[in-house]
């Protein structure tokens, strides 16, 4: 509990799981959830480092901005997803593969 490594391991796990979701999930919203997990992992690291780095509030501020970004990102991403849905009637990521051409 007063050990940095524990938090880092949790964060690493969250990150790995998030990445896994991003890689494997077909549904765009699920992918988005994976992204959220990754962001949370990052935030957790930031705050843990702040705590064990001499209670440096800058870390908190940074995490705060990440949260703000995450919010914005989700809003925009969802908007895009809705758009894709309207066009393809599906939000499966592997069906929207125009990038291949």
């Amino acid at each position, binding site marked *: 509990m007063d050990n940095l490594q524990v938090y880092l391991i949790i964060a690493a796990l969250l990150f790995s799981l998030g990445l896994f979701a991003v*890689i494997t999930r077909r549904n765009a919203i699920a992918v988005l959830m994976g992204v959220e997990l990754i962001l949370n992992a990052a935030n957790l690291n930031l705050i843990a480092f702040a705590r064990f780095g001499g209670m440096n509030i800058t870390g908190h501020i940074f995490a705060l901005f990440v949260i703000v970004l995450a919010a914005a990102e989700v809003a925009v991403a969802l908007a895009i997803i809705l758009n894709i849905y309207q066009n393809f009637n599906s939000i499966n990521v*592997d069906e929207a593969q125009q990038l*291949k051409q």
Partner: protein
Amino acid sequence: MNIFLQYTLLIYFLPLIAFGIQIFVGKRLPRQGDWVSIGAVLTTLILSLALFAGMLLNYNPHFEQNFSFTWLETANFKITMGFLIDNITIIMLLVVAIVSSASHIFSLKYMAGDPRYSRFYAYLSLFTFSMNGIVLANSLMLLYMSWELVGLSSYLLIGFWFEKDSVANAGKKAFLTNRVGDIGFFIGIMLLFTAIGSFSYSDIFAGVADGRITGTLLTLAGIGLFMGAVGKSAQFPLHIWLPDAMEGPTPVSALIHAATMVAAGVFMMVRVFPILTPDAQILIAYIGGFTALFAATIAITRTDIKQVLAYSTLSQLGYMIMVVGTGAYIAAFFHLVIHAMFKANLFYGAGSVIHGMHHALHDLKDHKTDPQDMRNMGGLKAKMPITFWAMLISSLAISGIPFFSGFLSKDAILAGTLALVERTHSHHLLLIFGFGAALLTAFYMFRMIFITFYNQPSRPQIFARMKESPRAMLIPLIVLSVLSVYIFYTLPNINPLSDKGWFTHLVEAKESLVPGGINPTVHDIEESIHHSHTPAMITSLIVAAMGLLLAWLMYFKKTLSAEVWAKRLKPLYNLSYNKYYIDEIYNKVLYRPFLKLADWVAYLDWNVYDKYFINGFGKVTVWLAKIVGIADYEGLDQGVVDSFGRGTKRLGGSLKKLQTGKIQSYILFAALAVVIILILQVL
């Protein structure tokens, strides 16, 4: 400003201004601007007369005025230009002005109706300008420049009716042949300049007198200058252009190719005589003498009236050149002046006849008959009395009959030649040239007179339509005929058998400046001439009479048949008739090989050198590139690189499947890459 300078500047530039006006606006002026040129040339005539009168009134045999200005200079190199005015100059200016004025007036009718009438007058003015440049030049530089300009105007005037191919060829031939001579001229100038460092006569004379150029070099310089004269005065072997130049309008032939331009060579030799070495002089004498006889032998078989006159001009110029070589060069100048008058007159006479013939043929709508062929004439005396008399007087003059001007100068020439032979006891060949030519001259001139003006008309229908030429054409004939009488040149002496008079006093011979006393002095020459004067005169009279008699027998009385004699002397006749095949020989030996050489050079340059050598570089490079390419492609590329390539392709083929367009796959690969890096890092 000096009065002489004023006069000469006017004389020099007025024709140039007239040329400028004529060439740019001539066509738009009333009467196509002929009055501009005529006005200019008449003004120069008046000014020349004024100068001449001034010279006579203030008689001074050593009169000399020199005006010059720096034309261009660098720190150490300088060329000056300017006028040299002495007695020779003034007389020559007058001669040019008289003949040129006559030509201008004659052309009023002769050239009337020509589509390029104003252009013709422009060219005449240009010629007058250039010729005056030769006369006035005080340095070889201005002389050479004017020399070339004269060549240009001659080119333009010979080629005036350029629609005819033979005319255009004649112009080109004249220019190029002259250029051959000019090369020698130019080399002579360079030799003198290199040794002396100046182009002006006075410096050159001083330099030669100082011995700054001697021996062979001076001889070569003299011969070089003489080559220029050979070209311009149409001496053998560069005489070929002058007969062809008769393709030009007749006033041009009279002005340029009889009286003035062709005499420029003689004039130059007279100018530079003091620097000629004995060797150069002998060469000059032989070339001149040979030309005199050689041209005369051709003249006797010509049937074209202008061709007869052309060859007679050659012959007379040969006389002048010859006598320069013998040392009695004042006789050459004397003959130049006199010849200008009577030869111009002969040409105007011929022009008058041709004009008449032309109009007669025009009336007959006959375009095939050659209006210049004497065989189509005959008996014209009745129809064209003034022309006849003018030509008769001139023929008498050229044949060297007493009471006419030609006698005086011809006599002086033959006396000079005889004097040389007597002084040196060698060079007898020159006597044969001189007297032989005199005999033939009388013969062919009267042959022409008899065929043209006597006997029965050979073509009565043409004859019926012949009439005397208009007044504008007769005035020059009359004036020049008068000037062919001896008295104008011998006053106050009226003995027709002596050439002593104002003229011989006026122009004094200059001493040779060649150091070492290898040339005879003026006194020696005059002494020997004095001795040989009487025998030369008697001989020349006898041969002239013989020539005249022969012509009379053959072409008037017809007791000797020309045809029979032509057959009897077939080989000689053929040689003469074909002008010794000189044109053909040149064509074969010089002209064609030269063009062939040019073709060969062009071929070598473009189709051999460039194609094979230069492009060969390219080809070799391409070939090397190909070899390298093959090695590169088959070996390195196909073998080594392509195996990579194929491997890559295969890999790519398999990896292509990875390229799915799915972001998730890409992220996966990114993660994979991170993992790989991680692993590598650890290892």
